[in-house]
Every structure is written in C-alpha cells, then in structure tokens.
C-alpha cells in the first residue's frame, strides 16, 4: 500500500513552519523559516518540508493551515485555529499533558488539553507584547545578543536583576538604564527571563494549573525561560521536542484525522 502524506502549515507572525506526516505517525519532513505571514516564508517552508520528505505537493493527500496567517494559505483543505492545532500536536507528543504553554512571536497562549487531546479551554495574553517572543527579540537587540545566546547568558547569572516594567517599551528603557549602571549582562538576561516567566505564570494561573504541564513555541527553545517558569510555577515543565513545529504537527495530525474520518 502506498504511503499517505498529510501536511500541516503553521504561519506565525515571525516564522513559517511546515511539517509533513507519513501515514499519520511518522514525520517525513519539516521546515522552519524565520519569516512569517505576508513574506516568502510560507512558500519556502512548504518547499523545504517537501524537499526534506522527498515528495512533491501532488503527493499530499490532505493539508491543514493554522497560525496567525492561516487564512492566507492557498490550496489547503482546512483552516483551523492555532489553539486547536497546538492541543492536537502536544497530545500526539505527550498524551498525558493537560496544560500547554505556547509562547510565540507575538502572543502567549495557555491551553487546557482534554484527555482525548481536544482543546478544553484557553487564555491568551492581551494588551501588549510583553512576555512574548517579540519581547525577547527586543531585549536581545538592546543587549547586542542573538536570541539563541540568551539561555547561556542567563545560566551564568549571579544576582538576577528585577525588571519591574510589564510593558515592552518601558522594560526596554529599564534594561538600558541598568546597562548604563554597568549591571552584568548575564544578571540582566536572567531578569528578563524571570519577567517573561512572571507574566506567563499569571496567565497559567488564570486558566488554572493542571499538571502535567508542557511548553511549545519558539520561546520553549530558550531553557532560561523554561527554568524561570518552572521556578515561578513550582513544577516541572515538559518541553516539546518539536517546539516551534508543534502547531504544524497538530495541523498535520488534524489533516490525517480528517482523512481517516472520510475513509471510515
């Protein structure tokens, strides 16, 4: 019997992700392009994922788009919210997880996942970019660091600096002010991570903490934030190995589910 491929495409604000699933379980190919909706990112992500899987678009039996730019993807079979896809994705990776924290480029979401892997309830950040990936991007730029260096720096912190501002713009001024006082960069980075953790923990508590808790999204790649969040919440957080690809994975699983429903 020929292999059946489904595709999940997650178009975010700052990155495009695509994942191809073979026979509903095996990841045949994936790609993360650091360019989100309205850019060449979505197309490139699809092309790279297809190339990685060694197949072409005509081999895709079913596709689902999700993410901030989900409505802009042409030719897909279904468009599903990123919240539903994240729930599906994390359930496929960690079936026991009941709470998922997903911090993306411009928003943070906390999702309650039911025992059967469905979206049960959720909360999203509001008002501003503080506590999101964008916040870390801005802070890294101020500190002349790449985002990928933040984790290493925060691990070396000795006296974590308190970042009191809850607004990205004000926090940026606060960080600049600390820099001018010759505060150690590692202490500052740890303070920034704690600031993200405090905001995110508030969101988690708003939904209610139900363990096990997992984390996905680009910010999950930053162990400094994960550790700060674990400390803030007083629990252990499982990090999805798919991180940024969790939404695309959920979308591909969704597409597979639709195919199964059709053939049953």
């Amino acid at each position, binding site marked *: 019997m020929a292999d059946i491929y489904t595709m999940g495409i997650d178009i975010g604000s700052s990155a495009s992700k695509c994942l191809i699933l073979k026979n509903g379980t095996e990841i045949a190919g994936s790609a993360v392009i650091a360019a989100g909706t309205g850019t060449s990112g979505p197309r490139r992500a699809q092309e790279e994922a297809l190339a990685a899987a060694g197949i072409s678009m005509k081999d895709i039996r079913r596709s689902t788009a999700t993410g901030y730019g989900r409505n802009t993807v042409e030719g897909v079979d279904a468009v599903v919210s990123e919240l539903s896809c994240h729930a599906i994705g994390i359930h496929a990776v960690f079936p026991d997880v009941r709470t998922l924290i997903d911090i993306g480029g411009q928003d943070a979401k906390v999702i309650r996942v039911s025992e059967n892997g469905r979206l049960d309830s*959720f909360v999203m950040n509001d008002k501003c970019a503080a506590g999101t990936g964008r916040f870390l991007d801005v802070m890294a730029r101020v500190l002349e660091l790449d985002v990928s260096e933040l984790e290493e720096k925060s691990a070396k912190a000795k006296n974590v600096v308190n970042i009191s501002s809850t607004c990205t713009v004000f926090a940026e001024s606060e960080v600049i002010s600390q820099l001018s006082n010759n505060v150690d960069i590692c202490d500052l980075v740890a303070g920034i991570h704690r600031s993200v953790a405090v905001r995110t923990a508030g969101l988690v508590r708003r939904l209610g903490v139900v363990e096990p808790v997992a984390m996905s999204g680009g910010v999950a790649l930053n162990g400094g934030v994960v550790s700060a969040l674990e400390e803030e919440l007083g629990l252990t957080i499982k990090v999805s190995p798919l991180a940024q690809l969790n939404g695309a994975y959920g979308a591909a699983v969704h597409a597979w589910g639709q195919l199964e429903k059709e053939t049953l």
Partner: protein
Amino acid sequence: MKYIDELKNISENPRAAFEGAIASGKKVVGVMPYFCPEELVYAAGMLPFGLWGAAIQANDSKRYFPAFICSILHTTLEMGIKGQLDDLSAIMIPICCDSLKGMGANWEYGVGNKVPVINVAYAQNRKIEAGVGFTASQFRKIRKQLEEIAGNEITDDALAKAVTVYNENRDAILCFSKAAATHPKEISAQTRSAVLKAGYFMDRAKHTEMLREITEELSALPASDEGYLKIVTTGILADMLGFLELIDKNNMVIADDQIAQESVGARTQTPVTEDPILGMAQRLSDIEGCSVLYDLGKFRGKQLVSLAQEAGAAGILFVLTKFCDPEEYDYVPVKRMTDAAGIPMLQVEIDQQMKNFAQAESALQAFAEMLRER
C-alpha cells in the same frame, strides 16, 4: 426586510441623524452611558442622543484623560473638543464609574460651556429605600435643568407618556432580540447590533414601531439557526464591525445578551406609579447585570448563567471593553459562576479603535471549534 437598511444607515451614520434633528429645529441632548433618565429629555420635547464613543482616533482628549481610560470616554470628549457636538443643547454625564467621574470636569475644561453638562448622580446603595429616594431627588434636579434648557415645563403627563414610550421600546428590544436569535440568516450579528444601536439616535417611539415590524416579519419566517452555535454576550458594548464579523464568520448566533448598550437596560421596565420620577429611580434600583451599577450580591454572574441556560447557549463571550476597570473586576466572579455552571466562557478584549482583530479572530475560531467538539 423592511426598515433594516434604514436602521443600519442610522447606526452607521449617527451624525446624519443628529444633523437632521437639529435642522428640523429640535433640541438635542447628548446622553452618555449608562442608564441616564432619557425619559425626562423626551418629555421635554427634546431628542435624547446616545453618546457611546466612536471609531475615531483620540488625540486631543489625551490632554485630559490618561491613555488607559476606555475609548467611549476618550472619543466622546474628542468629538466635543473638535466641536462636532457643539449643536447639543446639553450633555448628560452619569458618574457611575471612576472614569466617568472625571468626564464632566474634563468636558468643561476641554469643550467649555457651549454645551452645558448635566451631572447624573445615582445612589451607590441603589437598592435601599434611601437610595431610591436619593436617585429620585437627583432626577428632580435634572428635570428642572432640562426645563430651563428646553424652555418649557416637563409636565407629569408628558413624563408619564415618555415612560410608556421607553417601556414599550424596551419590550420591543427584547422581542426583536428573541426573534433574531432564531434567524441568524436574516439577522446577522452585525445587523442585530445596528438595529439595536440605532435606537440611541432616533425617536424611541419610531424605533419601537420599526422593531415591532421587523419582529413580526421574522416571526412569520421559519427558524434559520440550524448549524449555528448559540452564544450569549456580556459586557459594555459589542458594536465593532470587525468583531461582529467574526461572530458571523464562525456561524455563531447571539441567542441573548447582557450587553449594557443592548439588552441590559431593556430588561427592566419603569414601574408605572403616580410619581413617574420615583418610578424611574426605582427602575435604576432594579436593573441587574451591569458592572457599573453596584451589585452587592454579584447577581450579574447568576443572571448570565440563567440567560445562557434559558437560551440553550453553548458558550458565553465576555466582551471586555479595553481599560474598563468595572468589567475587569467583574470578570473573576462571573467566570467562577459560569465555570461552576459548566458553561464555557471566552474573554475577548476589544476597543473602538481596533483595526486588527487577528487575535480575537484566533480566539473566536478556537472557541467555536472547542464548542463544536463538545
């Protein structure tokens, strides 16, 4: 459907209604939310004109209000400062939230005395007899102020007639809302909002006549709500087109609402008493389900649960007006009550200046997906 386009036009272009009234020689009194004694204005022969803010950018108002004040106040003040409301004979400003408390003074500083302010004070302890008496005393004071502005007496007869007009309008609003709940194909969320909102900019008796006609037409049609998700909305206002589009796009139908701008006031009639003023004060004491009116027993959540249960709603949308403290405070007890009743509730934060509804779109789509999976 008869009158729908006309009401949509009024709702989308209240300025034309305003200018039309002025051109006809009628005096117009601006009425800010919430629950002002409009009957007094009506009985004086003037047109009460709702001022619920606008989808405009607030700039000059920021000289008087900090940025974190709701857009209803910001944009109403902005229109006043820009001279767009100069033809008003007066503006009624209640003082039932912390932001509104500063509105009267800010109006006087920003707009000057060309549009006099009528401060509307309600008793905080509105349920007790002394509270009703206090509110009535305030309404009597306002009656005198309005008589001076109108240049004629407000007779008890005229006031009793105005009370009847408003009571009938409230009933017509509820009947229309109920009919619209089963006819989403004919009355989308956008249309429903426009039909209700138009009442703030026109003669209530005419609005009632139109609502009755539309309701009658709808009642003669078969229900068209199959496949739609029934939801109940709660909050201050929910009239942003971008937001309403999302409700329609996700095949949701507003089965009932607890929105201050829509059905909250309509749910409570003015008791017909010998003293109409006392009846109006009593009504203010009886209104339930709004964060800006002191709610000792936290009845809002209970009312919301029962509205949702009676409507057979799958979920509730808590439409949070950005920077509205009373709404933020209410959210927690309301959420606890809806959770206890097992009714999913989604909070969506909106304001009148919003152009991009992307986050609300994700949230509403996810909420719809979640409810459909249940």
